[in-house]
């Protein structure tokens, strides 16, 4: 059981800065109960006292003789550390309380980690901005199964579609066959469990037309009735196992140590209280949720580097990796090492949920395309430096070459990093054609560099590749006919709009205003997704000159895992004005 370790001797302090809720004009997350900022944190269960008392055993050893032990306090000997570790190991806080807890503000998570490792502090501070609420699940070894199972029923309630519940009852009935034939489970083994699932579905179907709160209450009651809850959870275990046995080719490769499907099922899926592992979660999502057209986002809160918790989205995709139901309902789960809880995005219009997911998933898709075109950067880099003239920058108002003459060397390589390289030719030619010669845009790239608008291609090309579905569906989105880009490029922010509706409605304004003035440094900032993607997929960049290293075009810091970019996020409308920008 994982638990952050508050340092026993750390002074009691209010968590003043842990969770700055955005309070920007124009972006007011609707329906957020605990929007009042960190000091208005209301959940008594997660009061600082409570989080301190987690380690009630350890602090006592330090406090019994205050002054003479001051020195000892600051050098914990190995015994203390051992004791701490033992305490952490044996500590099982979540085993008290309901199997499925009440929904509460996710600021509670921030609070919980306020004294933990800095990475946790950073990540948990960012969490409430995306996910307003969470629901704790008891860590009894079934939390992952229970969290996903609960979310399945809860989402059915949320959709308020009685007919769909009827379909689900039918689907569950038909899945009995899968358990028998593929799973190899005797009917008497699972009939009671399947019955609990069906009974609950039927109860919800009856309640939904009358009262949603009542349906929610019934769901909570059933999931907190251990007999019912465990039956349903175990049914999902058997379902996952049967699904795997029915599709062995898809999963065999993910089983460690070559244990084989049957052994894996017996050791990891079927034992009650065996924590769900990644493959188990994948199976459950594939068997239970994907067929509904639902997506599941798992937010991984761990000590990996980064300013935000990583997340991964599981959803039905077609052969090209494009989500088949991008606007479908989405379930969010919070994963902390060996534990799952449920997250909710209750603020904002519900449509933003699938939209955000869209962006991320398609970024991944665009990455997969990059394999094919990775050799282009060198070529382009050569091209650009081969031009050997900086006049191409001169067309940018306010752009001065004098302070950093060598920057044109680094310039191409700098953008090779974040950009899908293949976009450079097309966007460049397109931008040139927009600016000077619309008739033969492709050929002009080498001959007329002076009129290109380099300022546009860092910010401009990524959206088509990573954000808009149309380019993704084409096998080679990398070399679209320049003419098709023309109308788009003449209005810089335009391409965001069609595909990103709600996302852009937030982003459009700061972006467009900044993009329209090429001197603005922020026009050189693609979204963080491109930077992250580039950092993952490209090697380190070599910068030729120290001048360039110091210039604001140097993006090497994006490769530094500790770097926290000042980036635009949908949650903050504050344009990321920075010192670096002004210093240029």
């Amino acid at each position, binding site marked *: 059981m994982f638990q952050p370790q508050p340092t026993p001797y750390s002074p009691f302090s209010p968590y003043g800065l842990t969770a700055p809720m955005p309070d920007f004009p124009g972006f007011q997350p609707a329906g957020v109960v605990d929007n009042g900022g960190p000091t208005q944190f209301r959940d008594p269960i997660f009061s600082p006292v409570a989080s301190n008392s987690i380690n009630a055993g350890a602090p006592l050893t330090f406090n019994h003789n205050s002054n003479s032990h001051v020195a000892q306090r600051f050098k914990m000997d190995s015994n203390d550390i051992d004791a701490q570790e033992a305490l952490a190991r044996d500590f099982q806080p979540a085993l008290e309380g309901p199997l499925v807890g009440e929904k509460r503000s996710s600021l509670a998570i921030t609070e919980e980690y306020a004294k933990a490792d800095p990475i946790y502090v950073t990540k948990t501070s960012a969490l409430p901005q995306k996910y307003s609420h969470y629901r704790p699940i008891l860590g009894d070894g079934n939390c992952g199964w229970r969290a996903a199972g609960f979310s399945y029923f809860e989402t059915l309630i949320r959709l308020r579609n009685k007919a769909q519940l009827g379909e689900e009852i039918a689907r569950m009935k038909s899945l009995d066959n899968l358990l028998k034939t593929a799973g190899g489970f005797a009917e*008497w083994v699972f009939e*009671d469990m399947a019955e609990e699932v069906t009974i609950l579905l039927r109860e919800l179907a009856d309640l939904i037309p009358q009262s949603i709160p009542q349906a929610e209450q019934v769901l909570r009651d059933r999931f907190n009735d251990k*007999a019912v809850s465990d*039956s349903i959870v175990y049914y999902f275990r*058997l379902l996952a196992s049967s699904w795997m046995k029915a599709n062995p080719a898809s999963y065999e490769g993910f089983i460690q140590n070559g244990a084989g499907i049957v052994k894996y099922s017996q050791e990891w899926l*079927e034992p009650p209280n065996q924590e769900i592992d990644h493959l188990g979660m994948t199976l459950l999502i594939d068997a239970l949720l994907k067929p509904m057209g639902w997506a599941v986002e798992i937010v991984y809160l761990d000590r990996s580097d980064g300013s935000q918790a990583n997340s991964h989205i599981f959803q039905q995709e077609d052969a090209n990796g494009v989500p088949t139901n991008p606007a479908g309902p989405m379930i969010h789960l919070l994963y902390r090492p060996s534990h799952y809880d449920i997250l909710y995005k209750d603020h904002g219009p519900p449509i933003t949920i699938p939209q955000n997911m869209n962006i991320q998933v398609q970024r991944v898709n665009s990455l997969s395309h990059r394999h094919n075109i990775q050799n282009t950067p060198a070529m382009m880099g050569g091209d650009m430096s081969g031009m050997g003239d900086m006049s191409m920058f001169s067309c940018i108002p306010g752009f001065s070459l004098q302070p950093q003459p060598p920057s044109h060397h680094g310039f191409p390589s700098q953008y090779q990093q974040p950009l899908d390289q293949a976009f450079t030719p097309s966007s460049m030619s397109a931008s040139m054609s927009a600016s000077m010669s619309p008739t033969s845009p492709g050929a002009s790239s080498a001959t007329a560099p002076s009129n290109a608008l380099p300022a546009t291609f860092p910010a401009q090309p990524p959206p088509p590749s990573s954000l808009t579905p149309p380019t993704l569906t084409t096998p080679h989105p990398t070399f679209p006919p320049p003419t098709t880009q023309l109308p788009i490029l003449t209005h810089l922010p335009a391409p965001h709009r069609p595909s990103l509706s709600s996302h852009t409605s937030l982003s459009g304004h700061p972006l467009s205003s900044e993009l329209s003035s090429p001197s603005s440094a922020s026009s050189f900032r693609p979204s963080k997704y491109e930077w992250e993607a580039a950092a993952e997929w490209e090697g380190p960049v070599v910068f030729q000159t120290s001048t360039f290293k110091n210039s604001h075009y140097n993006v090497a810091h994006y490769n530094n895992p500790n770097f926290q970019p000042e980036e635009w996020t949908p949650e903050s409308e504050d344009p990321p004005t920075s010192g670096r920008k002004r210093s240029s």
Partner: protein
Amino acid sequence: MSNYDMEDTQNSAPGALPPAQASKLAPRRGVDAQSTTKRLQTELMQLMTSSAPGISAFPSAADNLLRWAATIEGPDDTPYQGLTFKLSFEFPSNYPYAAPTVLFKTPIYHPNVDFSGRICLDILKDKWTAAYNIQTVLLSLQSLLGEPNNASPLNGEAAELWDKDPEEFKRKVLGRHRDVDDE
């Protein structure tokens, strides 16, 4: 007390034991016991209609399905050939989501059974699944007699003798075995 007896139709025996009463009366456990009882009744039916050879099991008391007595016969071509072993099963209230507690009542000399009759078998511990049942447990125990897991013995001497001195092992098995009365 007598009122409860009247209401409790499942406890048909008059003057049923207080512990069984208590577990039925507690509302929380009552729910658990219901599905557990149903499951155990199903298993009893199966054992009666299609029992595997060499094993048998039956509730040890008419009014309490959570305690069973079972027997297995020693497999042929093993040191246990011709011997019969009695076992006790105790089912938790959340069975089958937790393993039953199984003990050898007949004294047995075996690498994976200690002198109190406690058994070291993974499917009775962390490898238990709800897809197992009384019959699969008994069959597993039967095969454990012929194929002990000497890597993790409860009886180290037995584990050693199994490999080194089968004759001596057999002698110890026969020396330890004695029939126990039904409880």
